[in-house]
């Protein structure tokens, strides 16, 4: 089925964002901060930065915030009273200007958060989020979307996908019902599309490795401690990779307050030394090499097996953010070529 297309220009995009804002939606878009570009809440197109290859953090915070309140509690007459979140009161969100890799990541997050126990807060946020993607005219050496089933112009996960045609004009691909609704709500801003073919406006991202080789290679390498020790020796065990990654969903739960307070969910990282520390004192992953191995196994072996989705979209953020250059693409190539 051919995708419905439109076109829109820069000025109309600016009006579109204003319209979303006037509808009470919050808009999450890339914004410059010093020499870094990161997702932030914006009120106008003027604040948005669209020429970077990728942002520091992913837009996963729209559906999986860095810190979120699960519920509040207090005591009354000796009983604990829970005040659940009013899901209907959650604001509508538009994520604007994210790349196709980021758009594809929501499927991985949804696979985790709706797997065995459906997470109502996550699902409510996702239902209220419209994803307006922007395809990639440029890539860098850290990108590997095409090796994990994605691409610089892939529409999966976006409700609308924009492609910059130059001269302030954008191709608009309407990918989903949500996308169609959004276009229909602003008829004057969208014009019929003239350009149908977008390939010439997209980056060239050659496949770096054969994905089919990765899971079996990981399984074969599982009991090769020297391999993992070698790869992970410079890893410092921080959370920069996990927190920046759009598919990373590990979280911690913390109660704050006393007799009354809030239960909060917040990000966690499998790279932290105490991530798997048991109350008994036993830690099944006491070495950084075991934690590094688990990061790769989770993304490329366990998630495909359990949830039929790859836990990585090839955005390259983890590699760019890592203070010691743990380049996941480099490591995946090594895994694909390893002879255990």
């Amino acid at each position, binding site marked *: 089925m051919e995708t419905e297309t439109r076109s829109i220009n820069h000025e109309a995009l600016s009006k579109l964002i204003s319209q979303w804002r006037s509808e009470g939606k919050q808009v999450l878009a890339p914004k410059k901060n010093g020499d870094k570009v990161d997702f932030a809440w914006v009120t106008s197109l003027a604040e948005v930065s669209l020429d970077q290859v990728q942002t520091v953090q992913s837009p996963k915070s729209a559906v999986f915030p*860095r810190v979120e309140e699960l519920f509040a509690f207090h005591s009354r007459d000796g009983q604990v009273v829970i005040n659940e979140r009013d899901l209907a009161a959650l604001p509508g969100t538009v994520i604007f200007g994210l790349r196709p890799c980021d758009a594809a990541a929501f499927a991985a997050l949804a696979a985790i958060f709706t797997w065995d126990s459906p997470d109502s807060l996550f699902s409510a946020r996702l239902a209220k989020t419209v994803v307006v993607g922007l395809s990639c005219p440029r890539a860098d*050496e850290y990108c590997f979307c095409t090796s994990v089933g994605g691409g610089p112009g892939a529409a999966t996960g976006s409700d609308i996908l924009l492609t910059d045609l130059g001269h302030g004009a954008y191709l608009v691909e309407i990918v989903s019902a949500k996308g169609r609704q959004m276009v229909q709500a602003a008829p004057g801003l969208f014009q019929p599309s003239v350009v149908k073919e977008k390939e010439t406006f997209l980056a060239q991202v050659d496949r770096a490795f054969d994905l089919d080789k990765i899971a079996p290679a990981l399984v074969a390498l599982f009991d090769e401690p020297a391999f993992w020790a070698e790869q992970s020796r410079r890893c410092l065990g921080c*959370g920069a990779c996990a*927190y920046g990654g759009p598919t990373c969903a590990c979280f*911690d739960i913390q109660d704050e307050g006393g007799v009354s307070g809030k239960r909060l969910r917040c990000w966690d990282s499998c790279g932290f030394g105490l991530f798997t520390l048991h109350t008994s004192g036993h830690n099944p992953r006491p070495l*950084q090499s075991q934690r590094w191995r688990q990061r790769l196994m989770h993304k490329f072996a366990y998630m495909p097996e359990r949830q039929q989705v790859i836990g990585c979209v090839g955005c390259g953020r983890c590699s760019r953010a890592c203070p010691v*250059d743990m380049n996941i693409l*480099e490591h995946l190539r090594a895994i694909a070529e390893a002879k255990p």
Partner: protein
Amino acid sequence: MDALQNKAAELLVAKTVQVVIGYGRGSGGAARAVFIREASKAHSLIFDGTCRQNLAVYLMKPEVRQLGKAALVATPHALRTILQLAAENQVADGGLLVLAVPASGDEIVPLATFAAIEAHGAALDNDMSAAEKAELQKFSAMGLEQRRQFWEEQFSRCLKCYACRAACPLCYCTRCTVECNQPQWIPVPAHDLGNLEWNVMRAMHLAGRCVDCGDCSRACPVGIPLHLLNRKLAGDVFAAFHFRSGMAAKVDNAMSTFKPNDPEDFIR
């Protein structure tokens, strides 16, 4: 660079050390830590202006310690770090071979004992540069409210990824204060108040110990200028107690000791 590569190979062949911790070329042309265990791999060692990471951080990692005796390619900051670690009884005298590389990169100065490192370090310029002083001055000139707004904006972006902690060689506690949960002294979630408390904690626990290598800021994925907190306190420690970290292998840490006449003009 050849001198460094040859020296490393020589050390490994002679089994003087089991690993040479140095810099290699990584992604995007940047330098990254390498652990050379075979003489045949010594050619990948580099040393130039891109080599800034404080490699002393790896001296505290069990996965690296278990490789055996190490030689460490040391920047001036790493030298100071090693002395500070020595002062805190974390490294043994003679247990590490330091390869000090001056800015030119052609000559390697092997330093096998703390005394040798001290002598070498004393000859270097350890003062804050004029630019660094000016940067801190800028903050004084800002005024209280502007400073408050500045740091509130910065900490609102903190993720609590602890890259700053992980990158710092002096943050080596295996059970960090943030991991104590009876009570949960520093909040786990990365909300604004918790981020402030974490950054205050980090700055205070490094006061009088930090050697101002700047790796905390370089590690921060969201670009918070964390090193300014540490540099400010290092300056205050020097001004109030005339103490500078990382100059000697035997010291009483500034914050673990006192003088009867420490300044107290603010105490009523």
